[in-house]
């Protein structure tokens, strides 16, 4: 009974410093409407801009996250690369890739400082097998992260629920990569991100769904080092020059072909004169 009285008297004494209020505001039990909920266990995404918008300032350590993208290669791997680097370096668990559309290129992954000996590629033959493998890998607790590309036609809402429970049980972050049309369907995933290609080296992100917060759109992330436009211009001019040369060669070649067979010598001398 004593403690509330003392706090009230403290407030009444009007000697509350701003520091005290700040301390109170940071209390984990307090939630303000404009604030994201405090997720219990997260890892920084490596992008400060994105961390601001993610619950708990980072990717969830356990759970289901969906990435909605129109085409493979918009930057989904580079978005997850800092997390993958952190997980493969700090934990001895697998990072399982289930049914990847292409080959994860080992030299590039190693250049990003990802421990590729932790990578487990799984190629199931059917959708059912893929689902089973994903659930098994997530539930087992031996994968820190699972990435999966599933057949969209056969994926149902209840599957996402199962996957989410499995991921939580196994303390795994399960990442599903789905086409953008899937945004219209329901999903149990706690985090859904829509990715669209932006400027070269960057990606535009919309958070369609997140725990304890409204959807956010128009986050722009720089996922690879900025190239100077001048450098690009230089390279492009080099390329154009090369192309012009090639075209010239081609034209010369065509002219040679057009010329009659007995006149080959004449044309060759003629060309020597022009150049």
């Amino acid at each position, binding site marked *: 009974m004593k403690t509330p009285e003392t706090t009230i008297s403290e407030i009444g004494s009007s000697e509350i410093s701003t520091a005290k209020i700040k301390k109170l505001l940071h209390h984990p039990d307090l939630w303000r409407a404009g604030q994201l909920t405090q997720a219990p266990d997260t890892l920084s995404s490596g992008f400060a801009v994105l961390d601001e918008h993610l619950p708990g300032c980072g990717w969830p350590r356990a759970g289901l996250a969906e990435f909605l993208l*129109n*085409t*493979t*290669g*918009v*930057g989904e*791997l*580079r978005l997850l*690369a800092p997390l993958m680097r952190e*997980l493969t370096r*700090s*934990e*001895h*668990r*697998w990072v399982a890739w289930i049914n990847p*559309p*292409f*080959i*994860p*290129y*080992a*030299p*590039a*992954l*190693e*250049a*990003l400082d990802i421990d*590729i*000996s932790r*990578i*487990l*590629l*799984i*190629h*199931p*033959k059917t959708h059912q*097998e893929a689902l*089973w*493998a994903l659930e*098994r890998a997530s539930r*087992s*607790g*031996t*994968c*820190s992260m699972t990435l999966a590309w599933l057949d969209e036609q056969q994926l149902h809402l209840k599957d996402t629920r199962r996957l989410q429970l499995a991921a939580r049980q*196994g*303390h*795994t972050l399960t990442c599903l990569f789905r086409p953008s049309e899937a945004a219209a369907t329901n999903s149990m995933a706690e985090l859904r991100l829509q990715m*669209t*290609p932006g400027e*070269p080296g960057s990606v535009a992100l919309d958070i369609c769904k997140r725990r304890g917060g409204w959807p956010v759109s128009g986050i722009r992330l720089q996922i*690879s080092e900025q*190239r100077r436009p001048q*450098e690009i211009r230089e*390279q*492009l001019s*080099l*390329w154009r020059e*090369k192309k012009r040369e*090639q075209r010239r060669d081609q034209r010369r070649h065509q002219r040679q072909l057009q010329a009659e067979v007995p006149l080959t010598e004449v044309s060759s001398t003629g060309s020597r004169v022009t150049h």
Partner: protein
Amino acid sequence: MLWLGLHFPALAQEVFHLGESLRDEDPAEALAGPTGPRVAEPRVIVEDNRVVLCNAAALNAGIVQGCTLATAHSIVSGLRHHQRDPEREAGRLRQLGEMLYRFSAHISLASPSGLILEAGGSLRLFGDVAALAQQVEALCGSLGHEVCCRWAKTPLAALLLARSRAAQIEEVPLSCMNLNTDQVERFANMGIYSLGQLLSLPRQSVARRFGQHLVDELQRLSGTLPDPQSCLQPAHQFHHDLHLLEPIHSKEALLFPMQRLLIELHHWLVGRQLGAELLVWHFAAAGGHPERRLRLPVSFARPQQHQESFLGITRLRLEQVELPDDVMSIGLEARRLQPWSADSQLLFQQLPGEAGGAWRARELEDLVDELRARLGRSACCSIEVLDQHCPENAWARAPLSNRRRTNRRRTNRRRSASGAVQQAPAAPPPTRPLWLFEPPRATAPEKLTLLRGPERIQAGWWQAGQCRDYYVARHEDGAECWAFVDAHDRWYLHGYFS
């Protein structure tokens, strides 16, 4: 020295019913005590056309030991009988001896249905001899055998006590001794029925009437004459077969006898301190036709010992194969045996991926085992970097089984790379895409907007010389890709930067 004598009274019958004793009763009940195979229908074992052993149901029906087979059939119409198979009994006795190897290093066979264990050396481990006997009985019960277990100062005394189930050596009836029926009858005529009575007779007169052999036996019994026992040497291979009385058609039903074999394998492995990396199952149909046999290998990433871990993977493999539709015999072979190293369990429950990252490698390999068993051996792999200039050869699928080798290769690579760094500053790493296409896809150059490049890669002149100019480009669908133009001015996509 303390000796434990084991007697299997119903061994002759049990060898025929090994496949089904687990199907009727649950294993927990079998572990509770030496119940043996409890089968409802009357069954007898026949030798020389006479019943030598009958089960409880046959006894209740009124069949007595020693009656002829014709009499027994006239009493019970649907009687099942088996000819006694001494070879099978001896084989089973030997298997039992091997599976009991965990309790004692000194096990000897006492044909036809007894085992003798030296218990003195194992007392410190098991506490006292009663606890040891209890564990032995429980193990035999779980293997489907009724056993009587007694201990004494000499091996012969222990065996006789077990055989007669008597409390004192003096109470052992003479019929339990290794005497011929003629001698037993002569003693009976003299009014001597028990061993106690025989021991009280003067030895010299016994020797005169029945021969020195009997006196020697009595001296071995009392310990005045040494009784060396020949030790059982456990086999180096495990290969047990189980013959069923009725064909099994479903895979679910097949799991029970398979479980029984795995339990036997487990005890054998524990006794020899080994783990198995490869199991080979043999399933044979009724006719024994070679075409109707099935060999099912089940491999594991690391040596396993426990039947649960064997069973889980075996079940996954079993789902994928076509079995002969009437399986009559199952064989289990253990290959690639490795010394077993038990690892300690965690004292506290640790969350996976907790600080420290001390995640145990065995559980990682269990996952690989399970995925492989269900999806096929080639479905799982890892990747590694190779020292090749050509982009498509700079990586390879790495097998997961020999991880140690790949790791070594990787560290070698690292070391050489770091050595190079000390001599000269390394060039900035070239840009490589995260997704690689295999093979490269032909594309039209109009779809690409070039961003950076070119990087010339020329490699493999000794094969088919490749000369490519690589560019970082933006595809019209928005993806940043890695494209190249070859010597013939053809454009290809080789990867996405993603």
